[in-house]
């Protein structure tokens, strides 16, 4: 049973063809991780899959629903089942941490502010932050703290599918480890499906069931976690070792 099925998706900005044909499938309760060089279009791919960017062509099915065929109302409903972490956090500057985390609960699910706040506290603990940040504004937090608040916001609505764009970038190794644990817990214990992007090899090792390497607008290699370390594919090899020699040129 696949929760996400992407078929031959392309996305261009004007004449700039960023994604030239990506197909991938995410099995329920598993974690798919997209890797690839900086600027290879990972974030664009993720946004095109969730429909924040309109794909130029191709098909995306989430829970069996073809995204382009859905009307706004059904799309919104589907979105409520998805938790999205943006690469830059994308916290609302004008709202406190508590209101940021509770936003989806209040506006999407009609929770009262008080209920939302209780859940916000719980989710803050999940990402290893304390209650004292609740009334702070995003600008008063460090970069890593912002990322974690954004993570808390993404999981606040208890989504069925999570989309994480570089969840551990900018975090210290211990916090990174915690976030990795959390993602593993989501998929292994709670049956949540995850589609993530990462640059962090350690994170890749821990959280991925399946991995796709994006290069030149296509997934040029796909395999299971264990294949990562044994494959002969020069791109993957270079990526996991961080070597300067290989098909990637900086």
């Amino acid at each position, binding site marked *: 049973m696949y929760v996400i099925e992407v078929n031959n998706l392309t996305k261009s900005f004007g004449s700039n063809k960023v994604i030239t044909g990506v197909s991938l499938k995410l099995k329920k309760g598993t974690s798919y991780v997209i890797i690839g060089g900086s600027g290879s279009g990972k974030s664009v791919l993720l946004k095109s899959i969730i429909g924040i960017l309109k794909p130029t062509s191709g098909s995306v099915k989430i829970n069996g629903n073809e995204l382009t065929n859905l009307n706004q109302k059904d799309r919104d409903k589907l979105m409520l089942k998805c938790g999205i972490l*943006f690469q830059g956090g994308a*916290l609302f500057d004008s709202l406190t941490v508590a209101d940021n985390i509770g936003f989806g609960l209040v506006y999407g699910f009609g929770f009262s502010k008080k209920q939302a706040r209780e859940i916000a506290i719980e989710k803050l603990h999940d990402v290893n932050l304390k209650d004292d940040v609740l009334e702070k504004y995003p600008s008063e937090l460090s970069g890593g703290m912002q990322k974690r608040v954004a993570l808390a916001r993404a999981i606040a609505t208890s989504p069925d599918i999570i989309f994480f764009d570089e969840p551990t970038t900018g975090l210290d190794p211990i916090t990174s480890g915690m976030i990795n644990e959390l993602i593993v817990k989501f998929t292994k214990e709670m049956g949540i499906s995850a589609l993530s992007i990462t640059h962090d090899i350690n994170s890749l090792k821990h959280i991925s069931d399946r991995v796709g390497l994006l290069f030149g607008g296509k997934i040029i290699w796909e395999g299971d976690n264990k294949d990562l370390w044994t494959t002969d594919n020069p791109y993957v090899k270079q990526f996991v070792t961080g070597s300067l020699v290989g098909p990637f040129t900086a």
Partner: protein
Amino acid sequence: MNFYDFLTVVGKVFLKFLRATGNIAIFLFRSLLTGLTPPYYWKQIAIQTIQIGYYSLPVVGLTALFTGMAMTLQCYDGFSNFTSEGAIPSVVMIAMTRELGPVLASLMVAGRLGASMTAEIGTMKVTEQIDALSSLSVNPYKYLVFPRIITGTLLMPFLVFIDDIIGILGGYLVGVYHLGFNSANYIHNTFVSMSAWDVCSGLIKGAAFGFVICLMGCYQGFSSTKGAEGVGRSTTNSVVSSSIIILLLDGILTFVLF
């Protein structure tokens, strides 16, 4: 430059203008369509009411006060040549309510509010906060644009009204305390020739200008491109375009209303 090149340039500019107009119309249509269907975001409307109504008062009031004062002084200079100083109160009143009140207040608000609106929304756009809104199943047009346009349109007449009062008061202060008018006479002359239409036409203009400021402010914010430079450019565009539209529209409305 030959004639052909000239036509090309004119054509390009015209097409660009048409495209922008079309985009703005679609933008407005989307915002109204989503904004007018429940649920309504009252809290956003309340926040904008304070932003637009309350925080614009000082700048609008100051402009009005000094415009009224200067207006009276200038009129005195001219009118005393014809010993028709008695007309000053009503001239100041008409100028303030029909023209200067709505236009100056709106230009000031375009500078203050339109700019900050574009900067705020533009920053939200480039930092993916607008994407984040949709990802939390909140329509950004409904949440960000509609409350601003609706409060801007409804509150601007109120600001213009305050502007009228303060402007006339400024004229009174200069007239009575500087030029030596009799206070009772000045007040009498102000109101004797005042018609409700003078004030109302100004308020109608105010509503139209408020609408323009907020529409352009939001539209330019949504069109921001990446980087601090992108947001800066949009902010400038917002103020310049709404100021030009206000002045153009003022001409058209004056023609239509009188």
